[in-house]
Every structure is written in C-alpha cells, then in structure tokens.
C-alpha cells in the first residue's frame, strides 16, 4: 500500500531515507501507527489523470473564499490564513490544530493550462484540477493502412 510515500520527488533530505525506513517498518507492524501526514500545512496529494493533474489539500475550517491559488507555468501556489479560534475567556487544555498563515508551492511535472484550472473546496478539502498544456497532451496517432 501507498508505495508513493517512498518516491517523493522533493525528498532531498539526506536523512529522509531513514525516516522512510522507520515509517515503512511502523506500517508493517501496525498499519495505523504510520503517520497520517507530513508536517507541512496544508498537506497535499498530487495525482495524474489522462489529460492533467489533480492536486488535493486538506484545509479544514477554511471556506472557499479564504484560499488563494495561483499557477505560474508548472508551479501551483496555495496560500491563506487559518485562524483557529481559541477562547480568551477560558483555558486551553489541548491545542493540536495548526493555526496561522500558510503558503505552499508545488511544482507539477509538466506545464499546465492555467486558464482551464478548476478548484473546489468541500468539507475542508481543496481540489484543484488543471489540464496539461497543449504540447503535453496525449496525442492519438492514426494508424494508416498502406
């Protein structure tokens, strides 16, 4: 399951492989012991479809209008401010939810057609769908008979 954890194209930390091994062993012993996500906020997943990419990000508590997305060539930037309400008239027993400004920049494997990008935010999950640029689209080659 989830082999793609081990092949992050952004892993340039020399210690990452040890972390990955530890994580893999944890997963082997107990599937729920593996960390659910990395430390970055928001955590993002990237998928490839037939004609483009789908980027999802977990942003619970934010509404659609609070999220800024920009695309430049093949770089997607997601930013915003997640203000977690903590009462000032009481005491806080536990504060695990991330709060504050965030900005993530994710490089896509190929250039995309930013004009055709569509983003939705439902139940705290952002989903950005963007088709690949024309020159990266799969092409159907007609086979001629001679």
């Amino acid at each position, binding site marked *: 399951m989830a082999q793609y954890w081990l092949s992050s194209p952004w892993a340039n930390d020399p210690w990452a492989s040890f972390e990955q091994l530890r994580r893999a062993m944890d997963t082997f012993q107990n599937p729920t012991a*593996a960390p659910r996500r990395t430390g970055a906020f928001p955590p993002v997943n990237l998928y490839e479809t*037939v004609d483009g990419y789908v980027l999802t990000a977990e942003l619970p508590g934010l509404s659609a209008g609070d999220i800024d997305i920009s695309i430049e060539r093949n770089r997607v930037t997601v930013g915003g401010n997640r203000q977690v309400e903590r009462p000032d008239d009481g005491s*806080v027993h536990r504060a695990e939810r991330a709060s504050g400004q965030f900005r993530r920049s994710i490089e896509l494997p190929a250039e995309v057609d930013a004009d055709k990008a569509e983003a939705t935010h439902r139940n705290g999950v952002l989903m950005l769908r963007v088709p690949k640029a024309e020159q990266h689209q799969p092409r159907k080659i007609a086979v001629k008979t001679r």
Partner: protein
Amino acid sequence: MTTENTTDLQTLEKPTVEREGTRPGVVFRPDVDIAERRDEFVVTADLPGVDEQHVQVKLEEGVLAIDGELATTPDAAWTPLYAEYRSGGYHREFRLTDAIDADRIQATMRDGVLTLHLPKTDRHRPRQIAVQGG
C-alpha cells in the same frame, strides 16, 4: 491551590485502542483542540473530507466517541504521483466526567471541522458568592 480537578478533560482521554475487524480501511486520530470556558467545554476536531452525514458522535457509558468517514474518496483512475497525507476514517474518544450535562451536548459540522459544545452541569459552574457586610 487545593481545587479538585474533576472537570479536566485533558487527563481523561483514553489511549487509542486498536479495533480490528470492525471498520474497513485505515482509521486515524484527528487533531483536536479542547478549551474550557466558564460554563462549557468546547472540543474542536479536524475531520477533513467528512460531512455531517458521515460523522457520528456517540456517548455511551460516559465515553464520548467521534467517528468520521470520508464523504468522497479519490478517483481510482487517478495515478498518485506524490502524497503528503493518507486518507481514511477518523476515530477518537474521551471519557467524560459527571461535570458535563450529557443531555445538552451540541455538535456542528462545517468545512470538515466538528465542533462540540459540552455544557457543564449546574453544580460544576463557578458561582460568585456575594459577601455581605456584617
């Protein structure tokens, strides 16, 4: 101070228990905030991907259990290229004291965040005692 700390939810959380076979797929422990106000506790849980139809809040024998399932899952036709989080259900439970008025617990779900208001019972609310001059 020699106050009895009977209303502290923090120390009352049960360790996550493995429940094999009862749930399909992986279940994760959601991030929570717990705050205490004068007359209530507020529990806020991040359940990204869960809507009000897929969340269950249950109180049974003094244990408050939060369960969530994803409303939608990623399309199986998509090829994962890179992942920073895994998708699955959520489960977390807390043992409540009798300081909480179980009948008046309120739960709301919005943008993947569950908010629970747990009112304190009347006898656990702080009371101001008027001191009269002799």
